[in-house]
């Protein structure tokens, strides 16, 4: 309540300050100014919609670097939470993304393809799309994020089942100097970053950056464990990460590399471990190198090529009851390389995209052992290859009609082959309006974790898994009556089949992955975006969705029927301050026991000053402003049916560029 009075007071102040004219140039003067002076005018830039770069005909949400600052986004999960029809579930270990009625807990986001500058982040062991603190790139280095809804396998292959998240990072020229950044936040959290970027006279650019994050976390209370330490997991929610990122671009070549490692303590005693044991923690790390080439081959054809190498490692320490406590170590090691060549042709009535992709997973190892007394429980070593070939043609039919047709064939040494089409009929009767009718299928090959992982007493393997599939129909209407107002409506019907779900086998009480039936998901989404010339922005959306298991007719768990979002950003005191306000409503969600996680409304506020002093930028954020107590549904590996989320928290961030 006091907070609201504060905001109202601030608004009143704004009105007073606005009475003083501080406009340096009136409109009429501008054309009379010499270019040197025009180049020194700071402009408000928020008055146009960013354009998508993704080739597929889909519904796309774009988060820009400006949005990341304005709304105080800390992770990709924060961004995903803010867009139409998406939600995030956190089990105090990993963040899980839900979209279009499907939000499988415990799936490591394997049905979402995550790309960084075109490089596939999903690892070849768990297919993880890391969107929490384990995402390998500092969010401050992101130029934009394109969140693409709907199946993308016709271009991108496996994992692009529910969509594609394409992260585009900054270039050296975006920094042009050194930037130091420091953050302080609730729950004993601090973060530091040092970045250097430069563009050389010859056009080459260099970006180097290092970050460190440490969070002590809070004691977590779980009534299910009241018998042990009164249900309190003490000092078991810490989160530490470090990451390094570099990019060098020369002419048509870009070399990008990164390394990251995150250590997370786990308070939930998942996987039947001992509650409140200080040893329970997981580490996830990855490294990558990606060499990109982009160039024009001829007047009508562009070529791009990638050559990449990646590594992923995971190490979990799981304490099990016994005297003394048995420490069990669960490890995974992945290493791969691959290449992709893509051609884009701009012909008279055709825009053609075609390419081939190859990936060699030369290491897909999983192991599990007890430390003392030593006992090796799993030592599974695998390797595999995949190849894909795809083509897409966007044909101008005339009268504002476009036909987009794409097809991709994938061959997996571990899981057979898959063919996935995509068809889009796009009609622009007038410039301001577009109707899109979309059809597509996508698949995800089972990964080595789902196929081969086994741990005595907890989980068993299932080498007979088949790929899971999705078939999607979608109708989209986009209307932009003015250049600064855009309205989108869409309706979809998705059917997923042969879903790979982790279930408990009643015969032996072990966790196992099974292809389990079919799910129908239906939904409608609405979104309106408005921009003002002075830089104010408003984006609001509503999504209704329902998903049911076809054979039983039962509604899926962790699937909210209603989602509503509002993002508003306002310049205050001229351009001195910018405020970002977010409201996110998530409807109640069914849990595994058939109970439900209550619906909740979250409010986040950020105030940003981009020029508190020369080169200095300061922002303050409050997340969950009204201290709403809410919980996310647990997964089969949890005793808890509900996992409580953070209450109100703060963050203060200072950037200094020199």
């Amino acid at each position: 309540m006091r907070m609201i009075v504060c905001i109202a007071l601030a608004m009143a102040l704004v009105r007073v300050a606005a009475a003083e004219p501080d406009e340096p140039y009136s409109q009429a003067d501008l054309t009379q100014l010499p270019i040197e002076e025009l180049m020194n005018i700071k402009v408000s830039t928020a008055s146009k919609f960013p354009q998508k770069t993704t080739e597929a005909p889909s519904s796309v949400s774009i988060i820009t670097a400006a949005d990341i600052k304005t709304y105080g986004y800390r992770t990709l999960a924060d961004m995903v939470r803010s867009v139409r029809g998406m939600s995030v579930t956190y089990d105090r270990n990993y963040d899980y993304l839900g979209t279009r009625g499907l939000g499988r807990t415990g799936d490591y986001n394997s049905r979402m393809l995550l790309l960084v500058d075109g490089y596939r982040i999903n690892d070849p062991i768990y297919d993880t799309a890391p969107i929490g603190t384990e995402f390998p790139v500092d969010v401050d280095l992101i130029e934009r994020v394109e969140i693409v809804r709907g199946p993308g396998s016709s271009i991108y292959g496996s994992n692009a089942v529910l969509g594609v998240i394409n992260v585009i990072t900054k270039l050296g020229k975006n920094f042009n100097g050194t930037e130091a950044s420091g953050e302080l936040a609730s729950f004993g959290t601090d973060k530091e970053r040092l970045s250097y970027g430069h563009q050389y006279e010859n056009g080459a650019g260099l970006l180097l950056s290092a970050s460190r994050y440490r969070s002590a976390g809070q004691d977590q209370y779980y009534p299910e464990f009241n018998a042990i330490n009164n249900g309190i997991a003490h000092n078991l929610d810490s989160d530490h990460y470090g990451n390094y990122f570099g990019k060098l671009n020369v002419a048509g070549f870009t070399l990008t590399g990164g390394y990251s490692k995150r250590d997370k303590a786990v308070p939930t005693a998942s996987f039947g471990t001992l509650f409140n044991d200080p040893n329970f923690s997981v580490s996830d790390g990855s490294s990558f190198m990606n060499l990109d080439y982009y160039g024009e081959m001829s007047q009508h054809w562009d070529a791009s090529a990638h050559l990449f190498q990646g590594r992923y490692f995971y190490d979990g320490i799981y304490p099990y009851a016994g005297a003394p406590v048995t420490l069990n170590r669960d490890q995974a090691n992945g290493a791969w390389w691959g290449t992709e060549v893509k051609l884009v042709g701009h012909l008279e009535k055709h825009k053609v995209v075609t390419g081939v992709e190859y990936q060699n997973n030369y290491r897909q190892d999983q192991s599990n052992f007890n430390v003392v007394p030593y006992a090796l429980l799993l030592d599974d070593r695998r390797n595999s290859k995949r190849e894909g070939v795809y083509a897409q043609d966007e044909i101008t039919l005339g009268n504002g009609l476009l036909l987009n047709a794409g097809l991709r064939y994938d061959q997996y040494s571990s899981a057979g082959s898959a063919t996935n089409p995509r068809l889009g009929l796009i009609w622009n009767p007038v410039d301001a309006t577009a109707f899109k009718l979309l059809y597509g299928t996508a698949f995800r090959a089972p990964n080595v974790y789902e196929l081969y992982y086994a741990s005595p007493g907890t989980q068993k393997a299932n080498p007979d898994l088949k790929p899971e599939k999705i078939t999607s129909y979608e109708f989209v209407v986009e209307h932009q009556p003015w250049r600064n107002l855009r309205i989108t409506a869409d309706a979809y019907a998705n059917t997923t089949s042969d879903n790979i779900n982790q279930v408990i086998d009643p015969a032996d009480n072990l966790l196992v992955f099974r292809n389990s039936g079919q799910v129908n998901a239906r939904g409608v989404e609405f979104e309106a975006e408005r921009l003002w010339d002075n830089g104010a922005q408003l984006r609001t959306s509503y999504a209704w969705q329902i998903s049911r298991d076809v054979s039983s007719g039962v509604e899926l768990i962790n699937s909210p029927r209603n989602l509503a979002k509002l993002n508003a950003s306002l310049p205050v005191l001229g351009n001195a301050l910018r405020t970002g306000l977010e409201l996110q409503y998530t409807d109640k969600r069914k849990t595994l026991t058939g109970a439900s996680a209550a619906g909740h409304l979250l409010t986040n506020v950020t105030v940003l000053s981009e020029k508190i002093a020369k080169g200095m930028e300061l922002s303050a954020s409050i997340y969950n402003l009204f201290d709403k107590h809410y919980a996310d549904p647990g997964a089969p590996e949890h005793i808890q049916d509900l996992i409580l989320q953070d209450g109100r928290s703060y963050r203060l961030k200072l950037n200094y560029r020199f």
Partner: protein
Amino acid sequence: MALKKLGKIILALLVIACAIRSLNVLAAPPTEYEVKAAFIHNVTKYTEWPSVPAYTANTLRLCVIGQNPFGIALDTLKNKKVGGMVWEIVPVGSVTSPKECRVLFIAVSESGNLRQILDGIKGSTVLTIGDTEGYAEQGVMVNFYLEDEMVRIEVNMDAARRAGLSISSQLLKLARIVNQHGGMP
């Protein structure tokens, strides 16, 4: 409890409404497109045409192709003169072909058709301008970009030269020079 929640939501909405209202009285800096309109005026001053088609000999015909991002910002050019000629602002449509323009602004919405547009005006003396990343590398002569919220220009010299346009060195020394492949000039 429910009532209290509702109260909070209403208050939050009121704050937004009040804030949006207060925007109208704020003295805002010039918008991006007001400044870009002034840039177009200035760039034209620094450009020399070898010859121009008869229908644009006495006016400066500025065409916008694609979704016009300027809004009312181009109105500031009305009645302004360069070399004794006044601006005439027309959208590209069925009446005007891009070849019949003195200056052609290619909006970001046309990024998918850029190649066709540039092919279509080949051999003419149209000054092409854009404000989309990559446009200069793909053959647009003058392209605006933002650096630290200030408008900057990049010039594709080869593209201007091919059309026979000469851009004054006074302008070039303020611009970033790019060539077709984005590398060194």
